[in-house]
């Protein structure tokens, strides 16, 4: 059975069992090329796919998934999803009203290039990293591309899909100076193969690793800290999850009762935009078929919104922001698309930097 046939079969079976059902299917293709000592040390190519089912019966929601597309496996999935729904005590579950979502292609020919050129990109990055005499080892250099086809159907009328993809170069560099040994992992992630810059990535990694060589332990204390953008994104991970409606609903967010209140510096504005012209996390609709829209989470330090899917929005009485996220294996969650801290005018920035801590 093909994925399209399996989706259709599951919807029909769900309807005849009196279940509301949503079927999310993903088929993906991946190519990975690993360069070591300028040889193609490992080639990986793959096709993979699976189907995730969400059913609602009597307001109770259940999930199950399968990568096997036999009738037996599909039957097992529906039975398990219905059983899992039975365990729920919450009877407020529902599937959102669906609509025709069309089919979008977000990458077009972005990954089209001969495999030799892609291998060369990995070799070029490794070669660039080995040029510095302080390089001790380059244990990993890998080119990876992936394209996936996401399809969504529901008994409530959702029907659509999109094709998406990306290419990235990943490497690990170990540098030595005297007794000092430092290691860094970094990557260059793009929507299209030709946008990758192996030479520039190598220089950036050498700079990042070499400036740590000879680093001395910092005396414990309170310091003014300057974050490079990539470093700050790691810190953001610590509080962005608290902006998820699901986290709020589960009582784990310190922002829970702070809507409309100041929660950050007035220099801080945080936006999620799934429709950026060159966004790497773009999507036309979320995992439940809600069309994508721009969302201001924090504006000049004031909390404006949480991320929501249909379930968290309904439970908290707020608007659905179209941030449902799930893979075929997972349950309904929440995920940002292109999340960024807005730029601040330099004069404001300097003022903040020069003010006393």
């Amino acid at each position, binding site marked *: 059975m093909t994925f399209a046939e399996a989706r259709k079969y599951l919807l029909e079976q769900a309807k005849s069992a009196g279940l509301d059902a949503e079927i999310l299917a993903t088929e993906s293709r991946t190519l990975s090329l690993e360069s070591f000592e300028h040889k193609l040390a490992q080639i*990986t190519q793959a096709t993979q796919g699976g189907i995730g089912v969400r059913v609602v019966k009597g307001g109770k929601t259940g999930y199950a998934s399968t990568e096997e597309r036999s009738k037996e496996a599909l039957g097992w999935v529906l039975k398990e999803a219905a059983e899992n729904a039975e*365990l729920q005590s919450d009877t407020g579950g529902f599937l959102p009203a669906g609509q025709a979502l069309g089919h979008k292609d977000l990458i077009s020919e972005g990954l089209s290039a001969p495999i030799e050129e892609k291998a060369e990109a990995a070799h070029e990055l490794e070669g660039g990293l080995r040029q510095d005499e302080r390089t001790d080892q380059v244990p990993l250099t890998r080119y990876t591309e992936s394209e996936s086809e996401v399809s969504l159907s529901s008994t409530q009328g959702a029907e659509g899909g999109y094709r998406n993809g990306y290419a990235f170069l990943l490497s690990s560099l170990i540098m030595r100076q005297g007794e000092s040994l430092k290691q860094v992992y970094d990557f260059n992630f793009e929507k299209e193969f030709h946008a990758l810059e192996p030479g520039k990535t190598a220089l950036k990694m050498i700079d990042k690793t070499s400036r740590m060589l000879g680093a001395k332990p910092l005396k414990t204390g309170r310091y003014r800290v300057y974050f490079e953008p990539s470093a700050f994104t790691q810190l953001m991970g610590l509080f962005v999850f608290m902006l998820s409606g699901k986290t709020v609903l589960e009582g784990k967010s310190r922002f829970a009762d702070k809507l409309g209140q100041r929660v950050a510096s007035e220099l801080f504005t945080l936006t999620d935009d799934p429709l950026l012209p060159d966004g790497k996390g773009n999507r036309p609709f979320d995992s439940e078929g809600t069309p994508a829209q721009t969302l201001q989470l924090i504006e000049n330090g004031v909390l404006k919104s949480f991320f929501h899917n249909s379930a968290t929005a309904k439970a908290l009485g707020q608007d659905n922001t179209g941030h449902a996220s799930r893979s075929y*294996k997972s349950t309904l969650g929440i995920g940002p698309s292109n999340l960024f801290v807005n730029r601040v005018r330099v004069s404001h920035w300097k003022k903040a930097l020069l003010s006393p801590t």
Partner: protein
Amino acid sequence: MIQTELVQKILATPLRYGADFAELYVERWQRRGMRTINKEVKEATSGIELGAGLRLFYGTDVVYAYTNDLEPESLLELAETLAKLKGQGEVDAGGAGGLDFRKESYIGLHAPAKPLEQKDKRFRLERLYEIDEGARVSDQISQVEASYLEWEQDVLVANSEGVWAEDRRVRSRMMGLAIASNDTDTQTGSNNLGLSVGLELFDLKDPKEVGRYAGEQALTNLRAKRAPAGTMPVVIGNAFGGVIFHEALGHLLETTSVAKKASVLSDKLNEEVASTTVTYVDDGTTPHGWGSSEYDDEGMKTERTVLIDKGVLKSYMVDKMGGMKTGYQPTGSGRRQNYTYAPTSRMRNTFIEPGDTPQEALFEGIEYGLYAKDMGGGQVMPGTGEYNFGVKEGYIIRNGKIEEPVRGAMLVGKGPDTITKIAAVSSDLATSAGMCGSLSGSIPTEVGQPHLLVSEIVVGGEA
């Protein structure tokens, strides 16, 4: 799972195109999991994963492909496409079509005493309720999250050297997370038990105990003060305390990094690399261990590997390709998350062996130090062994006594330095389940150690 004749044809194809070695890995998983918060089911999921991975060697170059289309024509087409990707054209029309397999199968060393199908989902849910009840040790426990997962994995590994190994792995794990709150603060505590067992998991440890431990830990952290900073002696607790050495020592002993000279412990066999109090073992055969299996993911029987014996480096963890690159004998350490990963050398159940110092004696003579009773997550750079780990439950040691709890402590150091500073090891070895992420994905591994004393570690805390 798949016909012998088809496997023969699949493996023969790449050999015809000049591959030195071909290996087929086929697996089917059935997983279930559930999570509750305050006794309400938040998630209950079930899933089937099914796929195959084909790996070819050309010298020490590797080509790997995976798919979950297991139709015979698709697999044969995949074998041909993959062979042509690297091969130099057809070299021998005969190939290995008549390959004789030495068929081996699991004998149930880790088979469940209580099969998963013996009870329904409601039975598991009731055990989660018990975790919840156990965790409510005080009014300050504001939330309890309990979760459970189980999986059954059937694996076949066959290769062009005649290996045919079938394995079945059944695992289950329960976890409790408690949140304690007062007017000003919120802190957490957690505990889990994961083993290669079935429903007897709940007999081996009372779910209420899992909850109680998490609840007590959350309360301790709620009353804890900020940890101090400085360099000091540290007693690291048993069981999950072993995560530091897993990350900052174990990973440095995998041939994946050793073969590339990307580990500071490369080329150090038979050298003294640790304090003589340290014997470090990676054992894939521990009965019902969370990281145990009868065969590894390359079809080799697992074994007990002594990595460091009384401070001297005796072995690395060696997978097939790692063995080819380094000349060391494989140790049954080839592992992968699933068919989407080619195997690499990985840990199984890794622990520091018990010493002979009584636990109380570790604390004697410490004027001021830290007792890291339970460890949290951290980061490590495998090429350098540099690590930082959070202490999940910590106490100040003052004049040989365990005193007030502290929170927010970070242990910072280099694995290879830290193991030379292990001054004493007690006899209370315990292990704990975890998921280890690396090149070949996220796999179940046990970490473990007895309580041990490190003469000095940099502790990050409040200035």
